[in-house]
């Protein structure tokens, strides 16, 4: 950064003003406000006596209730069972798919990469509602015939039901992560095992699985944390089934009256603690697996098992997941969107098909406002995140400014904060700080930017690291100062990453529900929240219509953006 510092002449004792330190200081302050202040407020809120901070002294009774309430143990065990169960299910499905696609010669590979990303675009709430339609105990598409033919039905409003729906939802995510792990595993390690006289089963048991263990543990942990933080399934499936986990409990504490903000904060703090421990463990594990990966460091030609006859089994597995996990919920939503009143499909119901739901959606003020808000919020969030994190990433990766380690750490703090915890934290912040943005789009912007910053950071840091320092140094050696170098060398090289990051943040902000669910008002309602609202109002068929519109728009949007962006959007 020598080009930008104001050098002092010999003899002067005035301290130098360095622009980079100033920027860093500002960035740290902003990050502290975004990431640390809410956590501080959350903690203070959890020990506050009255519903406002600084009034009425402090108390531990909220924590007491969290810990000693007779249902506390049940809450803890339900949360763990739900998270572990869904993580394992998603891992099993995702790994099986990843293995089939990466390590065998199944013919539909390229198609599969595209297909596997579709469920990642669909908002969790849409997916969950689709499954509720399918598995409603008496009238679900799957349960109604089961009941009629065999006399039993699959209980969706239960812990197994929650595990099933969430596991299915996260399976594509596991697929992407495990696919990456399989790809970075040197196939010659398995070939060496074969050359050392080990049959395929022995190779799998002694070489492949142990080598995948650190990566697998890492992926399992990530899935665990994701499920722990999830809100859609616990709210829509857990609550009616009276299975409570931390996220739904936070929501409930506020939805009783009088709303118990302190209790909500106490639950949120507990959840945060668990999440932090899990993520810290994950960090340690991934460091070890990186040690395995650096032993061999080249690009690998993939080694594919020839399936022969088993090819059809593999294809069947993939098709089964595609149909059952992805298309079935969409199909049921599609059909239901044309019903006036929700009923089990039957020849009679075919006669009642109508477009009234779509008419409702397209003329409903609140829904249209939600559409507009979502678009605006998405664009703004993506832009702010990309701008902000590019500055921070540049400071942490490229510059030698002192204190950039702190900046890096703080930019990643929000990743440990579950969405709904962030929501309740922000409530506490804006109870105290006299900036009146609660209930407006601004507070949602704050929430979203805070939440998605780590993703931007990760993407942009990786992108910057890949641009060798030497490329910029060559420009400097040719006489260019900082700004022209940045503009002519770094920025053009970084553009694909910037674009891909922007697209990614835009998409995930369209899907976001849990951080906004406690912060919105009718002015600032967004799409996912609107769907949630409509469900509370019992408007199932309208939800189906809105979901269809949402799915189609998102898929089209991603397809178009990918075309322009020229890069695959991968879930990080």
């Amino acid at each position, binding site marked *: 950064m020598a080009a930008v510092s104001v050098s002092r002449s010999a003899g002067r004792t005035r301290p130098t003003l360095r622009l980079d330190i100033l920027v860093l200081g500002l960035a740290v302050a902003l990050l502290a406000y975004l990431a640390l202040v809410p956590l501080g407020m959350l903690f203070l809120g959890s020990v506050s006596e009255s*519903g406002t901070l600084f009034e009425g002294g402090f108390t531990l009774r909220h924590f007491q209730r969290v810990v000693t*309430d007779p*249902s506390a143990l049940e*809450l803890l065990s339900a949360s763990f069972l739900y998270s572990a169960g869904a993580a394992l299910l998603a891992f099993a499905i995702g790994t099986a798919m990843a293995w089939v696609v990466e390590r065998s010669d199944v013919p539909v590979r390229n198609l599969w990469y595209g297909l596997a990303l579709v469920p990642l675009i669909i908002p969790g709430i849409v997916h969950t509602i689709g499954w509720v339609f399918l598995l*409603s*105990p*008496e*009238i679900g598409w799957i349960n109604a015939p089961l009941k009629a033919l065999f006399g039993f039905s699959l209980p969706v*409003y239960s812990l197994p039901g929650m595990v099933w729906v969430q596991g299915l939802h996260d399976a594509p995510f596991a697929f992407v992560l495990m696919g990456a792990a399989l790809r970075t595993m040197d196939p010659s390690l398995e070939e060496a095992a074969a050359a050392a006289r080990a049959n395929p089963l022995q190779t799998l048991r002694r070489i492949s699985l142990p080598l995948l263990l650190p990566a697998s543990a890492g992926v399992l942990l990530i899935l665990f944390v994701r499920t722990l933080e999830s809100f859609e399934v616990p709210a829509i499936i857990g*609550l*009616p089934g*009276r299975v*409570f986990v931390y996220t739904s409990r936070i929501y*409930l504490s*506020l*939805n*009783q*009256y*009088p*709303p118990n*903000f302190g209790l909500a904060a106490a639950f949120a703090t507990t959840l945060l603690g668990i999440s932090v421990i899990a993520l810290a463990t994950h960090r340690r594990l991934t460091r070890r697996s990186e040690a395995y990966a650096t032993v061999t460091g080249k690009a690998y030609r993939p080694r594919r098992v020839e399936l022969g006859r088993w090819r059809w089994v593999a294809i069947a597995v993939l098709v089964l997941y595609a149909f059952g996990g992805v298309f079935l919920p969409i199909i049921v939503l599609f059909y239901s969107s044309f019903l*006036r*009143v*929700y009923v*089990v499909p039957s020849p009679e119901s075919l006669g009642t098909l109508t477009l009234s739901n779509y008419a*409702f959606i397209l003329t*409903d*003020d*609140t829904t249209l406002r939600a559409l507009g808000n979502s678009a*605006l919020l998405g*664009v*703004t969030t993506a*832009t702010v995140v990309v701008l902000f994190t590019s500055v921070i990433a540049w400071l942490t990766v490229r510059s030698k400014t002192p204190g950039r380690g702190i900046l890096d750490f703080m930019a990643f703090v929000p990743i440990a904060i579950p969405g709904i915890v962030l929501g309740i934290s922000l*409530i506490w912040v*804006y*109870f105290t700080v*006299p*900036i*009146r*943005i*609660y*209930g*407006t*789009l*601004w507070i949602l912007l704050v929430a979203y930017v805070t939440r998605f910053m780590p993703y931007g950071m990760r993407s942009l840091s990786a992108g910057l690291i890949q641009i060798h320092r030497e490329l910029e140094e060559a420009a400097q050696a040719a006489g260019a100062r900082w700004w022209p170098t940045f*503009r002519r060398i770094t*920025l053009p090289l970084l553009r694909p990453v910037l674009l891909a990051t922007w697209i990614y943040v835009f998409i995930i902000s369209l899907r976001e529900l849990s951080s906004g669910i*406690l912060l919105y*008002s*009718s*002015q600032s309602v967004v799409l996912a929240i609107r769907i949630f*609202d*409509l*469900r*509370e*109002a*019992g*408007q*199932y068929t*309208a939800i189906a219509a809105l979901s269809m519109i949402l799915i189609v728009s998102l898929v089209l949007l991603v397809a178009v953006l990918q075309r322009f962006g020229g890069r695959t959007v991968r879930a990080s």
Partner: protein
Amino acid sequence: MRRSFVTILAILATLASACGGSASAPAASAAPKASVAASAAPAASAAPATAAAKETADQAMARLYEAAKPEGKVLLYSSLNTDDAKKILPVFEAKFPGIKVQHTRASGEALIQKIVTEKKAGQDLFDVVETNLFEIKFIMDQGYTQKYAVASAGDFPADVRSPNDSYVAGRLNNDLPGINTAKLPPGTVIKTWRDLCDKKFEGHLAVEQGDVVIYSAFKKIFGEAEAQSLLKCLAANKPSLRSGHTEMANLLAAGEFWVTLASNGHRLAQLRNDDKQPIDWVRTDPVITDVQGMVLANKPKNPNAAKLFMEWFTSPGGQTAIAATGRVPASGKGAKFPELFNFAKAFYISTDLAASFDKDAEFWRSTFGIK
């Protein structure tokens, strides 16, 4: 790079203007509104004094309409469900062109949560609240409302309005147990709530999980001991706990369960008569009738439009619009489905039932296992 700079500026500018336009403007633009409210308040308080001598509803509405035109909208928080709102609110908008109703729909509990959180965060985002009486009482006790006497108050029976004009009811909910006649075993007769304790309903009963008011009503009707035993035996049938009466009624019609403990009568009637679903209800004695109260916010953003709406809702025109949806207008005139309540006396929910709410809620939750 310059171009992207301009784009960013454009986005920020759009954002700023969007926020300036919405009701959530930062402090600076709140000032002019505050002064409008301040100047409106003396006018409003002056008006009843001079027009105390029986200003008719029409006169009040005409006056308020003129004053409401610059406001342009009324922010309504109501648990009125969307379908019915879509039939009622446009009648208002047609009668008073230029005044739009922005309806935020949530169940009573959710509405309270919203209001409390918004108020604590220093925001005033609603003009009128219309929901169950218990919830109304709660926000009244918090000081989030102000008194307002509608001109048509005299048309309403005493049971449905407060003596000191702190609230007025526009509509009533008959809370009747709903039945899916197609699912019910033939020959089953249900006369009263106790009959739902029959073991044949185990697993086929649904209860709205926030319906504490039903228990409070039971206590008044049967006495505490009987009410508690009734609740316990209902809980023994492992009811499905639902959130939202409309959802519950829709699912009842779809066959998800056989009976519900308490559904909104008009919805049952709509499903039976308009949608031709296999629905019926238990003719209980008495008919638990929940009063849906309406109150004015203490700091409404659109005070004149708010009052205009309240006046209209309680006027004969508004009551007719309500009745047309099948709901029961509080004035008692013109109900579309009199068979919802013409078989027994009405038991009106009143605010003094709310006095023991905490205890009742505790008992309700623990009996049904709601944590």
